[in-house]
């Protein structure tokens, strides 16, 4: 533990410095049932900067049908959420889920559809612009190269690239004369023809499927969160878990859930994106007796996955009132 102790002081000081410089914006935690979730990228980033990792549980927007990389929302451990709330960095909504359905004013609906229409028009304009640019580029390239090639190959490519195109270029097998003026007028003619005939079908319009709730307009009342409201059952075990979480977090470790390793937390020395976990933390109350075979089983499991098992117990320290956490690790000693 010496090594990590040395690490800790450094990490903590860095943490403090970070907190000072950051703007105090509340991280919005939304409850879905009893599960705390973060939805906005900003909140995710802010939480990560505070050292809260969480788990992504949604489908990834870019490739939704796979399980290796997931996307928003980010699920938090109850301890993570509570510590955030303790640090006065979190606002909570959706906990009392039976709030009434807010009425949607017709104005908002109108605004949404107007925005959509506006977006379509702009997209249409952008598409036309894009098409023109491509066409000009293609034509000038043609011009530079040997003049008398058939254009249709390129226009064909163009159509392929933009399958939403409803334009049918007239005269695809047009041939160029070598004269510069001819070519210029040709380009001009073509662009004009494009202007006239171009239409961007509605089915080709892009719309955004929002991940987070759109706008603050119909968001239920958010409030500064009080620790007492946090839905954590206050039994011995949860208290112990929270104390251990808080302490390890204070020492600068990154924590994630360790259900698959039969423990409470996986303890990372740095950001889990770049580092492997070193410890499996198992929370045990100070006065709880534990069967030896359980200890052996979990120690064996830990050594199998090349991690050290930490038995963590919280209790009051002798000299002052502050709570402290006692860590015990188990090691095989070779006596060959």
């Amino acid at each position, binding site marked *: 533990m010496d090594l990590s102790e040395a690490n800790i002081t450094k990490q903590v000081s860095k943490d403090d410095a970070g907190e000072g410089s950051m703007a105090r914006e509340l991280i919005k935690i939304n409850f879905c049932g009893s599960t705390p979730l973060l939805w906005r*990228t900003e909140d995710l980033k802010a939480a990560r900067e505070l050292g809260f990792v969480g*788990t992504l549980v949604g489908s990834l*927007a870019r490739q939704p049908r796979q399980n290796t*990389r997931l996307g928003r929302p980010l699920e938090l451990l109850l301890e993570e959420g509570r510590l955030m709330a303790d640090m006065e960095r979190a606002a909570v909504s959706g906990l009392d889920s039976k709030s009434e359905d807010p009425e949607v004013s017709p104005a908002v609906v109108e605004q949404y559809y107007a925005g959509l229409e506006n977006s379509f028009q*702009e997209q249409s304009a952008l598409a036309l612009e894009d098409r023109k640019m491509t066409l000009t580029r293609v034509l000038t390239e043609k011009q530079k190269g040997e003049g008398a090639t058939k254009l249709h190959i390129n226009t064909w490519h163009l159509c392929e690239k933009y399958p939403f195109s409803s334009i049918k270029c007239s005269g695809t097998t047009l041939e160029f004369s070598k004269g510069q003026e001819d070519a210029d007028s040709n380009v001009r003619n073509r662009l004009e023809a494009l202007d006239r005939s171009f239409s961007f079908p509605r089915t080709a319009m*892009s719309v955004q*499927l929002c991940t987070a709730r759109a*706008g*603050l307009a119909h968001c239920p009342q958010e409030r500064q969160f009080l620790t007492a409201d946090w839905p954590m059952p206050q039994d011995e075990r949860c208290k112990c878990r929270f104390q251990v979480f808080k302490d390890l977090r204070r020492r600068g470790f990154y924590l994630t859930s360790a259900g698959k390793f039969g423990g409470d937390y996986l303890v990372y020395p740095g950001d889990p994106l770049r*580092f492997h976990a070193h410890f499996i933390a198992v929370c045990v109350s100070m006065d709880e007796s534990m069967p030896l075979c359980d200890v052996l089983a979990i120690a064996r499991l830990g050594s199998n996955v090349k991690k050290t098992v930490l038995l963590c117990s919280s209790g009051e320290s002798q000299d002052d009132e502050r709570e402290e956490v006692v860590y015990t690790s188990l090691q095989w000693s070779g006596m060959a």
Partner: protein
Amino acid sequence: MADQNKTAEVKSSNELLSPSELFEARTRSHKIPVRGQKDFLPSGSDQQRERLQQSLQEHWKLVSEERVERLGNLVKAVWIPSDQRVELLSPAGKFWQTMGFSAHGKQCLHPEEALYLMECGNLQVFYKDLPLSIQEGYETFLCSKTMSIHHYKVFGHLKRLGYVVTRFDPSRVPSQYERQLNLAQSRERPGRRLKRKRSLSPPSGHTETQEGATAMGTEEERDGNREEEDMNPMPEDTNPKLKDTNPKPENIHPKPEDTNPDDTQMAAQDDPSTTAEGCRSWWSKGGSPHPDLPGQSQNTGSPRWDFTSISFPDLGSRHQHPRSLASPDPCLLPGAVGSVGPCDVVPWLNRLNLREVRMSRREQERERDRDRYHRDVNLDREVQRCRNWTEYRDLLERRSRRRHRDRPAHLWEGEVTPLHDPSQVCLTGELMDKISVVKSTQLFEGASSLKCSNEWRISFNIYQPDTVAEFKKSTPGKPYSRMCVCSFSGPVPDLQTLKVLAFQSGDVPVTYAVEDHGDISFYCFKNFQIPKDESF
């Protein structure tokens, strides 16, 4: 200043894309960046910090990406909160093969299916004229207890792996009886057949269903007939026959004086108790009713006839043939019939085949062979000497005691006896079975009588990804597995739960999906038979 800040914040917190961003999103890459090797310990070096920064950047880019879809590729739908379902407004896409259901002539989706399709960018769900974000989808669709976020995480995980996942409906699991008879398919089939081949004439089909149905029909009919027969009281049934066979009772000259002695004698032989006072014979003497009988017959309680006290004539007897039968006791006949004259049985008896059975030589040999090994108990002299059952039982007792004389009485005579008699020879395996005091039980044993708490229920049917092509929602067939969702923080299913859910699922295995903060592990409990070594 504060205001400006606020608008900026609102804009960023909305995460709404501008039209140009939307347009650019058309050409964005669909590749997922590969994560590099992780380091062991933070060394504080610049290189490490740089790499972390880069990873984080990639991570945020990936996570912050919004779904942008073409309008033409989106299916529109509305959320109906009262029915907890999503109704499609435009025709469904390819997903309709494995998801959704029809109700009131509309294509509908369950909330979890709708949410999954929203996450996949195939569906846009409107509520109160506005599209729902994914977040709103989570918060509005996943509020029921049976479809919580835990269930959805398991659902989504399996769907992303390519499985076909449908809701589990216990009423659609064929019962054990149906499974034994292979009725499961036939029950599902008729509806489909009806839909498809309504024009076909019924007898043309040769499916099992129909055969089964007709077989069942005749069975039922037969049952019904038998029931009717059973219901008919004896006299009513026999009377018409008697009348039929006795078309002209006047022409027949009965000789009651001759027949009656025979009759009574016979009755006495059959049942000595008939001679006792108060008992009656169906065939009364001289056709006169017994004085106390009419009153009895008026008692129309449910046991109208005490058949043990009514003796029927034995017409098949080879030795004594009464020439005619006296008329039956009128009190045994229905009121309308009145009295029936004596019955001449001779023409009846002529129709009976009373010849002795003549066996061929082979049959005789067979009979002899059989007799050699099969001794008639009655031929035993000791048995013959027994006068009643008690004596016979005593005899058996005595014999068995003689047989087990070599067994020590202190071992075999008490209430507790050895599990095995060493004088009897048997195989090692049988012996092991015999001496195993604690029998092993199967998962299904006694499961039918157990009741499950409401906490545990099967949520999903799972069909393997490679069956998607042939999958039909109307006839999904036997699932690959069934899913029960639980979590590490909750209790572990106990044996009762395992038994009940396994029983409920029938011949399909039940898998337990344990969800823990996004990690999902699957467990299943199986019968395991410890192999026996019988070689020694």
